[in-house]
C-alpha cells in the first residue's frame, strides 16, 4: 500500500495529465458528424505516432561504436514511428482533400 502511495505522490503531475487528457479526448470527439469519423480516426492514428519521440530519444543515446541489438531495434522503432506519423498525416490530408474539392463547386 505504501508503495502505491509513494508512486502516486511521485507521479502526481503525470496522473493529473492522464486524467484530464481522457476528458479532453472524450470532449473533442463527442458530437463529431459521422462524415468525419474516418479522417478523424486516421488523424488520431497519426498523432499516436508521438512514440517517434521515444524512438529518437532512445536511438539518440545508443552507443554507435559497437554493433548491438538495441541499435537495430532502435532504427526500426524510428522507421516504424515515422511511417505512422508521416503516412498517417499524408493519408488524412488526402481523405480531407476529397471533402474540400466539392466546396469549390
Amino acid at each position, binding site marked *: 500500500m505504501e508503495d502505491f502511495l509513494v508512486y502516486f505522490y511521485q507521479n502526481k503531475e*503525470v496522473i493529473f*495529465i*492522464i486524467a484530464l*487528457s481522457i*476528458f479532453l*479526448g472524450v470532449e*473533442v*470527439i*463527442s458530437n463529431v*458528424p*459521422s*462524415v*468525419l*469519423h*474516418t*479522417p*478523424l*480516426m*486516421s*488523424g488520431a*492514428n497519426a*498523432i*499516436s505516432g*508521438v*512514440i*517517434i*519521440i*521515444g524512438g*529518437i*530519444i*532512445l*536511438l*539518440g*543515446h545508443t552507443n*554507435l561504436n559497437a554493433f548491438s541489438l538495441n541499435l537495430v*531495434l*532502435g532504427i*526500426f*522503432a524510428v*522507421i*516504424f*514511428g*515515422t*511511417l*505512422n506519423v*508521416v*503516412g*498517417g*498525416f*499524408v*493519408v488524412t*490530408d*488526402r*481523405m*480531407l482533400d*476529397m*471533402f*474540400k*474539392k*466539392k466546396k469549390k463547386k
Partner: protein
Amino acid sequence: METTLQELGITAGDVILEISYLVSAILFVIGLKLMSHPESAKKGNLWAAVGMGLAMVTTLFLHRGVSGQTISLINGIVIVSAIIFGGIIGTVIARRIKMTAMPQLVSFFNATGGAASALVALMEYSNPDNSSAMVTLLGLIIGAIAFSGSMIAYGKLDGKVGDIFAKWTTYFNIFMLVLITALTVYMLAFDHDMATQTMLSYVLLGLALIYGIMFVMPIGGADMPVVISLLNSLTGIAAAMAGFIYSNQAMILGGIFVGSAGAILTLLMCKAMNRSLLNVIIGAFGGGGAAADKDQGTIKEISLSDASVLLSYSQKVVIVPGYGLAVAQAQYATNDLVKLLEDKGVEVKFAIHPVAGRMPGHMNVLLAEADVPYTKLVEMDDINPDMPNTDVTIVVGANDVVNPAALDDPSSPIYGMPIINAHESKNIIVMKRGMGKGYAGIENFLFFNDKTRMLFGNAKDSIQALVNEIKQL
C-alpha cells in the same frame, strides 16, 4: 530568492525543449478539435502535423540523456536517415494507395505505431536507468497487441486473411490473457538478473503478439469498424506508456488523448450496433441458422428497363450503400446515376448507417471520393422518419444494416441493432452479387419482402447498365 537555471542543474535548452512539448501538445488538441468540422478539418490535420514535426526537431537537437549529453552528430545522422527512409516509404504508400483500400491502410499505419511502441518499451525494459517497470511492461504488451492485431485487421480487410472462429478461440484468448497477466506480475514482483529479465521480456512480447493475432482473428467483417477503432485507441495508450518512461508530457498527453478519443469512437460504433464491446470481442457473429426455418417467401428479380422506369418516375430515391459498393468500386457509377436522376427532377439522398462498410465513416469517404456532396449523405436517425415517403430505396451492397430482423426477430443475432428502415419505403431495389448472406451470416427478410425487387450482379456493372438504360428513356 531568485533561482538560476544552473542551480536547478538544467540548461536553457532543457526549458526550450519542454516549452516545445507544451506547444506540440496544444497543437495536437487544437488540430483534432479543428478536424471535427468539415470546413476546418484540413487545417486541423496540418496543425497536428506541425506539432509533431516541432516535437521531433526539438528532441533531436535539445534532448539530453542521463549523462547530460545531447544527441551526438553521428547519432543524429542515423536518426535523420531512418526518419527520411520511413518518411519516403510512408508518403509513397499513403499517396499511391487506392482510396478503396483506405481501411487497410489506416490499419497498417496503426500497426507500425504499435510496433514502434513495443520496440521502445522492449529496449527500455532492460535499461537500468528506467524506474517505471510496470508502465514499461504495459507499453510492451499493449504495443505488441496493437501491432499484431492491426496487421491481422489489415490482412482481413485486404482479403488475405480469413475469419477463424471456433468456440476454442474464446477460451484460448482468456487463457492467453491470464498467462500474460501472470507473467507480468511475476516479472514485477520478483527481482531477476539482467539476462533472465531480458529473456522474460521477449517471452512476454511473444505472448502479446500471439494474443493480438488471436484476438482479431475471430472477429467478423461487420465488426471491423469497432476493432479498428479499438486498436487505434490501444496504440495511443501504448505511446502514452512510453511517454511515462521518459516523463515526456507531449507523449503522455498525445497518447492518452488519442486513446480516449479512440475509445469513445469505439463505444459509438458499439452503440450503433446495439452491442456491448465485450460482445463484439467475444461473441463474434457465427453463421446462426436460427431464423432459416421461417417461411421465406420468394425472391423477385427486376429487369434493367423496369428499374430505370421506376427510378425515373420517382420523386424521392434513397440509396443505402454498404461494403459491396466499396468492393465493386461503384462510387463513380453511383454518382453518375445520382446526377442523371437529379436532372430528371428526382430527389436523391444517401442513407448512411454508422457501421456500414469496414471502418467508421467508410461510406462517407468513399462517396466523397466520387464527388458526392456531403450534404446528400444523411445519417440513419435523420433519414428513417422519411423512409415511408420514399418512392424507391436502392440497397447497394449493404445487407445487415437494412435487415428488418434486427427490429422484429428476437432470435436474430443482430436483434436490437438500429437499422435503416428500407422496408418502409414504397419500393426497394436490392443490388447484390448473389444470394450470399451478409457478414453476420444471417438471412435477410428484406429480400423476400413483397415490395423488394432484386438486381443481381456486380454493383458497378449494374449501376452503369442502369445509367445507360435511363439515358435511353
